[in-house]
């Protein structure tokens, strides 16, 4: 049965629905009644308005992830190898070669001197103001900013160095870390602008890190987080 939508439309022929006339719009509604919300001037659309249509999820109020860790390191599942508490695990994105990190060589010119390109195997040690670690890291460059010397890479572990001839960038600063939060402490609410202790899942030392969360995004795989201002311990 056909519904005559013309009676429901204001007859202003204003074009705001995307159709030149109310009659043309009424014809389209026969096929797609859900288009009716496109009529801005229809009084019923105004009267039923509640002012409570949600905007996209705010990164600060994202759904909660699992509260129990799938791994335990002994007495307290929310403590690192040295017994220090942390609030969540930072996991690797599915399909990535390893944890994503943004780094800058202590001498940023090394990026250009070594002609680092995406896909290059790199070797270096985090040091200095951020994220001091006694281990040399090896990884694969993903993106390279030749102007500032900044490199995004996947940390793949020292054994990867066997696969080729890694370019040695020397000491570097770890600027940021990206990962998925799939498991967190039950009392932890994750928000942008807050510094947290977290445990990178693949950290060989199993030491907690800390970082300031500057980005959150809900993905099908978990809560994507970007931490800056990294420190260990």
């Amino acid at each position, binding site marked *: 049965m056909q519904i005559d939508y013309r009676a429901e439309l204001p007859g*202003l*022929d*204003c*074009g*705001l*629905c*995307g*159709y*030149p*006339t109310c009659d043309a719009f009424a014809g389209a509604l026969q096929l797609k009644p859900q288009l009716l*919300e*496109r009529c*801005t*001037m229809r*009084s019923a*659309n*105004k*009267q039923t*308005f*509640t*002012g*409570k*249509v*949600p*905007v*996209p999820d*705010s*990164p*600060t109020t994202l759904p909660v992830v699992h509260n129990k860790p799938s791994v335990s390191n002994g007495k307290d599942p929310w403590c690192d190898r040295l017994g220090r508490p942390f609030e969540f695990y930072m996991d690797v*994105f599915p399909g990535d070669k390893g944890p*994503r*990190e*943004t780094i800058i060589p202590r001498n940023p010119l090394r990026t250009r001197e070594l002609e680092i390109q995406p896909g290059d195997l790199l070797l270096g040690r985090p040091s200095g103001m951020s994220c001091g670690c006694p281990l040399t890291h090896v990884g694969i460059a993903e*993106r390279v*900013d030749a102007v*500032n010397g*900044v490199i*995004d890479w996947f940390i793949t572990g020292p054994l990867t160095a066997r696969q080729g001839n890694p370019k040695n960038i020397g000491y570097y600063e770890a*600027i*940021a870390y*990206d990962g998925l939060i799939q498991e967190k402490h039950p009392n932890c609410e994750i928000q*942008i*602008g807050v510094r947290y202790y977290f445990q990178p899942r693949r950290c060989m030392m199993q030491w907690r890190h800390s970082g300031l969360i*500057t*980005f959150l*995004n809900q*993905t*099908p*795989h978990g809560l*994507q987080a*970007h931490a800056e201002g990294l420190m260990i311990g």
Partner: protein
Amino acid sequence: MNSTARCYFDHSATTPVDPRVIGAMEPFLHDGFGNPSSMYQEGVEAHQALEEAREKAAALFGARPGEVVFTASGTEADNLALRGAIPTPVTEPTHLITAAFEHPAILEVCRYLEKHGVSITFLSVGNDGFVDPQELRRAMRPNTKLVSIMAANNVVGTIQPVAELASVAHEHGALFHTDAVQAAGKLPIDIGRDGIDLLSFSAHKIHGPKGVGALIVRHGLELQPLILGGGQERGIRSGTENVAGIVGLGRAAEIARAEMAQDSVRLVSLRDQLIDGIEERIPNAYVIGHRFRRLPGHICLGISGLEGETVKLLLALNQAGIAVSTGSACSSHHAGEPSHVLLAMGFDAFRARGSVRITLGRFTTSAQVDYLLEVLPLAVRDLQPIASCAGRS
């Protein structure tokens, strides 16, 4: 598309003057220089041009010509509406209601009136960009003299339920003013049907010249003038009229009225093409405000994770020949501050900094939209070396 050609996507800030408007104005920049108040031929001709423009401006809003008061801007029209309807100092308790997301031309006047004894209520705004008539109803008081709610918001572009809001104001014996600077020429506004007592608009938002606006004052209302002098504009706004500008306003209003529907259909199509394309190419982009109840060529975007990088994004787009704005053009002087409009809509301060406003106009082409869809994802991507994979899942 030729990358050296500029692509202008900021029609809510201002619009290019329609060549037909320039054509109408030109005679009054040459031989038609007369003062409309003069009794001789030059003055009479200028006066006639003024009155023709008045008729055209009135027709855009279903008003009578005698209800049009020409001003020098939309801001002046807003000032005249509020300060003219509520002269200070007030002699009795007086209440005015407005919305927290109004243009500064309203908010600053309200703060001025507040300092001079007027009680002001700033209504909150729903998180999809609307003022709720029920909330207005709850805010009304016996001494509410004026309600001022914009017809369409300048940052998010959402269209307000003006007729319902005006009806609530009238039920309680208050006047209703609407700042229609963004809505004029885009929405079918009729002051009689919609119950509007005072309406402000500006020529340069409808492909007319800058420096000229108007206030529609419903017949029978008395306003106290802000500018005293020779008694032009029925004594409400003294000063020799900007004849060429007013003629331009009139012609722009005439064109807008005649072409509103066809412009809307085209702009809605381009707007939807742009929103769909952005959502497809930039997964962390989201539209702020209701998807459909917005001005036909208006998009307000947030890009999750890059809220703090909006200025860099604008500069990168500018280098690529594309003009868009953040928040509103007026806030470009306060680029470090979060948008008061988005704060009013319930956004936190971080996200309220990061809106990108893309507004299309009469001369926007499909090729320009394609070019924006080509460049914007690249510009967003290039912002991310420091943010690493932020925004990519």
